[in-house]
């Protein structure tokens, strides 16, 4: 049983990092995340003070939008290929499978975002202190984003235009993470990190069950 879970985790991670057929890997959300930070100064001008004041919020918006990009390849290809049916026949519960997938998704998406955040911070002339809070915030918030992403991917798997719908469904759910994440960078906003962690944990706790129910309902 644990051997099977490990094999599935390795496969999921490989798929999500390298990308599968016609669906980009971990690089795509990452580039998107950095490109947003690169474009923002072009749009509002190179005023370092303005950038430093608003830049942290831009990083959080970019992180949220980057989380939507991989939605279509998180669950749908495996439902399509019958992988979930085969796993069900072997007595592997969808809840565990989705938890494994959230972990793999976070490693292929949350972690690279944290590594790229210093580049974005540099482009937006943020201070070292701001970058530190952003990194802590991303560490606390991206697991929640990954959980919401996998849940929505499971709900929209098998639907036509599921990707577009998935984006629309994921954004409202991710708004608390955005508010607390960006809010933690305001003066006296340190409490925001606790709320961010709480929102992230709530998403993480609900996600495997909601996603598993969606996959089972999709079989009917």
């Amino acid at each position, binding site marked *: 049983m644990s*051997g*099977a879970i490990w094999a*599935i985790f390795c496969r999921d991670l490989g798929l999500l990092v390298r990308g*599968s*057929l016609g669906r980009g890997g971990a690089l795509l959300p990452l580039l998107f995340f950095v490109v947003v930070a690169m474009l923002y100064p072009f749009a509002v001008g190179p005023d370092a003070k303005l950038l430093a004041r608003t830049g942290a919020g831009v990083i959080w918006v970019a992180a949220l939008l980057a989380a939507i990009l991989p939605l279509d390849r998180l669950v749908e290809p495996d439902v399509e*290929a*019958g992988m979930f049916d085969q796993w*069900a*026949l072997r007595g592997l519960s969808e809840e565990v499978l989705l938890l494994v997938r959230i972990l793999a998704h976070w490693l292929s998406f949350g972690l690279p975002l944290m590594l790229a955040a210093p580049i974005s911070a540099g482009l937006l002339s943020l201070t070292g202190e701001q970058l530190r809070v952003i990194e802590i915030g991303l560490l606390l918030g991206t697991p929640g984003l990954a959980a919401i992403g996998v849940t929505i991917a499971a709900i929209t798997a098998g639907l036509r235009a599921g990707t577009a719908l998935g984006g629309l469904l994921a954004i409202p759910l991710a708004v608390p993470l955005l508010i607390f994440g960006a809010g933690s960078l305001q003066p006296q906003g340190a409490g925001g990190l606790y709320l961010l962690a709480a929102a992230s944990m709530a998403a993480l706790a609900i996600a495997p069950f909601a996603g598993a129910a969606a996959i089972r309902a999709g079989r*009917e």
Partner: protein
Amino acid sequence: MQPCRLAAFDLACRRGDRVLLRGLSFELAPGEALQLGGPNGIGKSSLIRMLAGLLRPFHGHVEHSGGLALSDERAALDAHRPLGEALDFWRRIDGAGPPTADFGLEDLLDVPVRFLSTGQRKRAALARLAGSGAQVWLLDEPLNGLDTHWGASAQAAIEAHRAAGGIAVIASHQPLDLKRLRTIHLLDYQP
């Protein structure tokens, strides 16, 4: 191998607002094979998925002992990976290895699954099924896409599985060349 069993009691199948089948019961002992026959749309695939526990019966219930293995129109092999790796993934989960030699797959192990023909992919799916070590095989149109030679090989694999004490349920509209094959015509169970 401990004895396996598959039994259905008064099954009814509903898709949408239509009842496709009702009152279907059977019981299979080790070594037995059952063909579910009938025209397209009669509910063969739904019935197979019900026996697999993937679809809830509208009425009645299914009992089984021994592991279940399913082969339907989806191969459950990662399309972009070489066949060898894709099969290896299932070997790591099931423990036993897919018998690639029985299905003539040795020369294809380097080929990405998406480049395989329909028949080759079907053979790979059957190899995955045979390697699962499960005692109850549920096959949905196992001969689709196979030529005469590999069709015979697939049926030989089913016979070998039965000889080893396994059960096979085969949904197919094609005639099968299996010994002591029980047949259920699903047309008889239409409401």
